[in-house]
């Protein structure tokens, strides 16, 4: 995949990681106590029954997700560094392309000339070859 498509994919990955991070944090966060008068909620009966808290521990998940987010951002920076250097602006590029096109036309014409000359020589050689074989056949005595 070319580098710009990779950069675009990386931007989308960062976006997906960001909102997955916030979504997961929001889903798994403890409820906020609205007033000190309210009693504490009962503790969960069995931690292993709840797969979300068991799988990654509420304190582990943010670390893993933020590490992934930072890694994706660093990859983006690496991809940006890998971009080829921008030589000049649009006009400079167009001028160089026009020069190359002129050179391409000149080389194409030279190629055409060489081809025509080579084809002419081929015809001449074929004629000569035909004449030589005719001469050989005529000189050959019939047995």
């Amino acid at each position, binding site marked *: 995949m070319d580098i710009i498509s990779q950069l675009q994919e990386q931007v989308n990955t960062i976006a997906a990681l960001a909102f997955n991070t916030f979504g997961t944090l929001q889903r798994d966060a403890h409820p906020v106590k609205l007033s000190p008068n309210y009693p504490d909620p009962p503790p969960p009966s069995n931690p292993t029954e709840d797969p979300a808290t068991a799988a990654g521990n509420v304190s582990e998940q943010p670390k893993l997700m933020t590490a992934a987010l930072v890694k994706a951002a660093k990859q983006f920076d690496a991809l940006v560094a890998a971009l080829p250097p921008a030589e000049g602006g649009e006009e400079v590029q167009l001028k160089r392309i026009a020069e190359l096109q002129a050179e391409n036309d000149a080389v194409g014409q030279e*190629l055409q000339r060489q081809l025509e000359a080579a084809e002419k*020589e081929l015809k001449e050689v074929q004629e000569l070859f035909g004449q030589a074989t005719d001469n050989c056949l005529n000189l050959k005595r019939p047995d």
Partner: protein
Amino acid sequence: MATATYPPPPPYYRLYKDYLQNPKSAPEPPPPIEGTYVCFGSNYTTDDVLPTLEEQGVRQLYPKGPNIDFKKELRSLNRELQLHILELADVLVERPSQYARRVEEISLIFKNLHHLLNSLRPHQARATLFHILELQIQRRKQVVEDIKRSRSSMMRTAITEYLS
């Protein structure tokens, strides 16, 4: 224009009855369209250009101008994005009701990032064209050399054969 689920073919085919005998008796094909046209109910334009951010109603965060340093702008936008994500996390902890503004800013940064990457595409197209032209010139020069070489070797063999 008639719109139907299964419209019949257009009646122009009758005009081409004697096309094989006389190609000039049938009408010429229509000229290429310029400007905007309607296709299956929606409007399309023949001028494919990337609309600027202002045209889409989005604020442009990176500086305008003819020559943009893409690498620098991309890196600074990336840094701003990370900062805004951190800010959003802070806001959700301290003042959860004010998340909307931060989310809007994050989406603005993403739109700017994508627009910047899309504006790199014409540059990439020109660079690809440049590369293709260079390759073509190289191949043509190679073929010219090969033809010259084989012609000269053929001449030499013909002369040696003639002399022997």
